[in-house]
């Protein structure tokens, strides 16, 4: 008997009892995928990669980190200076968080453009948003762990937001803090939860992918697959395309990790936490800036918190707020233009969030906040009704191959 036969018999034996090989084949090899996905569809697998990178680097960091108000800052310096390649692991983890958010934000904006949240993918969209919320909680708690000035004051500002809740607010704040001020108790529970949440994210990623594989990927045309001629197998076509995209993004990632590792962070976080000294401007990490911009646009504390939280929760309603039957913005002449206004609006909110709330930043922040909510709550439902979409193509394969022929004709 040859080696190969032993191998395949072993695989058959296992697979008969626990079908891991056939399910891998089903969902990663043969899985039928639309043939026309563009580069914007690379970002889902990229997000998965950065999640795994964060977990691996994070577990290694946890082996050397000391979660106490006394020792946290020094243990980070111990990692940076004494642990073998500790600086590489920590810089990869710090910047990995930023890249995770970049990739996920692009992934979300792709879904927004191509209507990937519409029937039958509403739950898929919801799981994605839950992952985003968990990511934000994880990233925030992770930022507190080095116990630098920004860690400490960000924790103070954010936990104090809960005091905006009427009547029970102050009680909730004390409960969260485990005391009456940001201190050791808070640091320890944040550490425990920062270790736990990534595994909750993994759970929701599994749900996200299961929901995805039930009806398959959406595609740039937004029309359903009509048959085998519209699909190609995931392997080798999308495995190689995802690998190429990953390699490209990793090049940029490591450019930052090796040559500008502190660029996305704040210098104040290399000053040990001091409860008696407030930094001149308390700013969150860049990926929270649009939400911070919304929080500060509202002159009332409770109102600001409600607006900030709603900014994400309105996205849960998108499948019903978007009244258009057509998925892809390619065939929606008005929505296609309006979409970019939302992108610009979020960029403006990020910019406002990074600046002190004074002068014209307040006005710009308020206009951008009003636009954000009007876009989702008013413009999207109305445009869906008023707009006359272009004629949808009859099939994916037909459109792709027709384009191909036209390109050839044009070149000739």
């Amino acid at each position, binding site marked *: 008997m040859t080696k190969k036969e032993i191998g395949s018999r072993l695989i058959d034996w296992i697979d008969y009892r626990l079908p891991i090989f056939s399910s891998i084949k089903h969902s990663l090899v043969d899985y039928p995928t639309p043939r026309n996905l563009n580069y914007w569809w690379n970002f889902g697998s990229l997000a998965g990669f950065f999640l795994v990178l964060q977990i691996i680097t994070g577990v290694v960091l946890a082996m050397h980190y000391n979660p106490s108000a006394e020792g946290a800052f020094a243990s980070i310096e111990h990692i940076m200076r004494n642990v073998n390649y500790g600086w590489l692991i920590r810089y990869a983890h710090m910047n990995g968080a930023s890249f995770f958010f970049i990739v996920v934000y692009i992934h979300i904006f792709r879904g927004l453009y191509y209507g990937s949240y519409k029937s039958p993918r509403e739950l898929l969209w919801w799981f994605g948003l839950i992952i985003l919320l968990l990511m934000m909680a994880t990233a925030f708690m992770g930022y507190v762990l080095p116990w630098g000035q920004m860690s400490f004051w960000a924790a103070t500002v954010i936990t104090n937001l809960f005091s905006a809740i009427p009547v029970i607010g102050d009680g909730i704040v004390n409960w969260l803090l485990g005391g009456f001020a940001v201190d050791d108790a808070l640091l320890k529970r944040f550490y425990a939860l920062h270790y736990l949440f990534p595994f909750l994210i993994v759970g929701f990623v599994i749900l996200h992918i299961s929901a995805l594989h039930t009806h398959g990927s959406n595609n740039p045309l937004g029309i359903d697959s009509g048959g085998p001629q519209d699909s190609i197998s995931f392997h080798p076509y999308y495995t190689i395309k995802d690998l*190429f995209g990953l390699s490209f993004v990793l090049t940029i990632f490591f450019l930052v990790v090796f040559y500008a590792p502190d660029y996305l962070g704040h210098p104040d976080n290399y*000053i040990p936490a001091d409860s008696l000294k407030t930094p001149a401007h308390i700013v969150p990490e860049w990926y929270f800036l649009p939400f911070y911009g919304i929080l500060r646009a509202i002159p009332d504390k409770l109102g600001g918190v409600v607006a900030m939280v709603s900014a994400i929760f309105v996205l849960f309603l998108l499948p019903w707020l978007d009244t258009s039957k057509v998925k892809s913005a390619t065939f929606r002449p008005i929505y296609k233009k309006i979409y970019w206004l939302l992108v610009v609006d979020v960029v403006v909110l990020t910019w406002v969030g990074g600046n002190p709330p004074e002068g014209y930043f307040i006005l710009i922040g308020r206009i951008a906040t009003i636009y954000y909510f009007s876009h989702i709550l008013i413009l999207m439902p109305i445009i869906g009704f008023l707009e006359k979409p272009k004629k949808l193509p009859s099939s994916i394969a037909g459109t792709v191959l027709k384009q191909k022929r036209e390109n050839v004709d044009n070149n000739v």
Partner: protein
Amino acid sequence: MFSKFFIRFLFYIFSIYFLYISLSFSAGKSFELYDIKFSFDGIFGTFDKPSARRGLQIYREVCSGCHGLKFIAYRNLTSLGYSREEIKNIASEYEIEDGPNSEGEMYLRPAVSSDNFIDPYANINMAKFMNNGAAPPDLSLIVKARNYGSKYVYSLLMGYKDIPDNFDSLNGYYNKFYPGHIIAMPQPLYGDDVEYLDGTISSLEQEVIDITTFLTWTSHPEMVDRKKMGFKVLVFLIFMTGLLFLSYKKIWKPVKDGSI
């Protein structure tokens, strides 16, 4: 296909540029720092070791009266080119409290290579008491902990000027680059503050370059290793991205042709 590739590339450039804009706005840059080039700037920049060693001399003779360097161990000085013997000698000039010994007593002993730099003050309260209530910051991370890092440290040390008429000098000294311009630290370096062991003339600018180089090393001791490894990693990744792109094109050819 290249145009799509290009658009995505532009998108990254745009987002990085945008972050740069928003960060520099949040930094509140209100005055121009001195434009100075250091030996450690750029992709291949390394520390000028003789300069960093002179910087250590300035630290020991001037700064260490008030500022600690608690995250640096004497043994770390090997990366500035000191031999083990030299480091032992430097360390043994300081005394450190250790203990308790087998009789339960604390005792003083000379520092050894594995000890961290000795703090000038026994504790933070003493540091505050001796300096009108504001403890001088530890310098281990000073370059990382300030916007514009080395450039800022250089400019600050060069930035002591006579007090303009409209400033109240009661609380400190005038510095062109310190936020708010009134700094509690008196001008530490004037030129000729030390007699360099290697015979270099100790002009003010030479001293400031040297101490800035030394303090950049204490903040980023891994910098040279990091840049070297980064270069190899990037060369590999660019090559691999090229190969993967060609493989992608080849595998997808039948799909694009419509033969699949």
